[in-house]
């Protein structure tokens, strides 16, 4: 094969790849618009929404509990190790709480939910797709986006702030255990300092982020499920993509959201 032919082949491959990415982007946009349209169209399926909230919220609580208590405790301990050298260990409380409220609670809850619920959404919808259950819904005249995607997306949007709130409270408790009970910082000082440095804007930032992450995890998980092709292998691939893209999206969007919210809050 000549150099010219190799170069031509590379250009063709690149073109194919770009076209595939553009098609994927178009499909995702189309899916997003459809789910938004069907969110506001009756019937409003509140029972399905509560079922999804129960699944995502209640069943993620234990793993959120474990993640948050150790995150709060370890973070408090690390700050103590750094700050005691400059006699600033009384600042452990506000630093941990602010970090939890603005970043750690929404982001780590997002990663947990993307791993647990994003994967479950893709697997459930994907297996329904390959066994023609989605076709069965459509033939009955039921919109599959409205029946399957909308409750999951809204469920994730509503569950995420609650899980993030739980993360914040338990994480604070973990840091309090280390700060007050282990390191023996005065309890009054520990909590008073939090009151001095924290404000409602910081809590709002966490809630906004958690809601946005919930939406992104929901839309990515359901999109991957609806786009499953083939059999069991396709379901596995879709599930994997839901987790990978869910986690990457949470981390990337967090950066831009932080920059944006810093200007308005």
């Amino acid at each position, binding site marked *: 094969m000549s150099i010219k032919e190799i170069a031509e082949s590379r250009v063709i491959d690149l073109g194919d790849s770009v076209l595939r990415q553009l098609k994927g982007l178009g499909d995702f946009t189309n899916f997003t618009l459809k789910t938004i349209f069907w969110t506001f169209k009756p019937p409003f399926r509140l029972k399905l929404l509560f079922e999804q909230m129960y699944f995502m919220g209640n069943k993620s609580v234990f793993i959120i509990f474990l993640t948050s208590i150790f995150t709060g405790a370890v973070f408090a301990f690390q700050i103590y190790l750094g700050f005691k050298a400059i006699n600033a260990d009384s600042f452990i409380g506000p630093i941990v709480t602010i970090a939890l409220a603005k970043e750690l609670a929404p982001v780590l809850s997002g990663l947990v939910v993307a791993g647990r619920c994003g994967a479950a959404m893709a697997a459930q919808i994907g*297996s329904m797709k390959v066994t023609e259950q989605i*076709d*069965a819904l459509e033939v*009955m*005249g*039921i919109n599959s986006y409205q029946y399957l995607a909308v409750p999951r997306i809204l469920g994730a949007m509503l569950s995420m702030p609650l899980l993030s709130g739980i993360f914040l409270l338990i994480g604070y408790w973990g840091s309090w255990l280390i700060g007050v009970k282990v390191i023996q910082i005065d309890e009054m000082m520990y909590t008073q300092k939090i009151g001095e440095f924290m404000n409602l804007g910081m809590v709002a930032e966490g809630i906004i982020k958690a809601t946005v992450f919930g939406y992104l995890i929901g839309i990515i998980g359901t999109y991957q499920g609806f786009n499953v092709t083939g059999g069991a292998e396709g379901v596995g691939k879709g599930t994997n993509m839901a987790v990978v893209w869910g986690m990457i999206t949470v981390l990337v969007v967090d950066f831009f959201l932080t920059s944006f919210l810093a200007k308005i809050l």
Partner: protein
Amino acid sequence: MSEKYSVEFRNLVKVFGDSVILDNLNFGIHRGKITTILGFSGAGKTTLMKHILGLVMPTEGEVIVLDQVINHLGELELREFRRNFGMVFQYAALFDFLTSYENVAFPLREFTKMNEDEIREKVMGLLESVGISPQAAKRLPSELSGGMRKRVGLARGLALDPHIMLYDEPTSGLDPITTHTVYDLMRDTHRRNEHRGFTSIIISHDIHATLKYSDYIVFMEKGKVVEHLDVETFKKSENPVIRRFLEL
């Protein structure tokens, strides 16, 4: 409403990319009869069925179902219109998170104002008519055999008293005895509802069962209708493609 046909195709063409999947089809499916659409794999049978349901739209031509040109209907009208159909899928496509009973009750809960007592009465009647016991009604699809799943799928398809029943390869994956049991059930269902112009459309490549249970046969090859005949005339067809199929 057309007395003769439940479904009509007029100059129907479907093209996917460079491939012509359906090539200028012009025929009607007789009202109140069992019609089987027969053909080799890739003949365009499933695409044709999706046109009847309005899941795929024609590139050219019209699909007329119960006197409605369905490719002229909007999205919401089409969803409403699909309640005229019942469908049994190749592998039943029962909702795996619901029991047999709940699968059959599903369309009734979605589309009727029946209370739970009325739904129970209707569902148990439908399940009994397809030979599903009250014990099996409580089971999930994963706990049922292939034949039982097809029966529950048939009961679900009949729940809203459809005008047209579609069967997509209804016996694929079943043993010969169960295949004939399922066909008997389909024929009995048809006969019970015949008085109201109930039309059964079967997509199949099972030639022997087709000859035994159908009133009409549409034979397709490469997106075209080779023959559309009543079953007795079909058996005598001299068309070489059909002869080859009959001799399998």
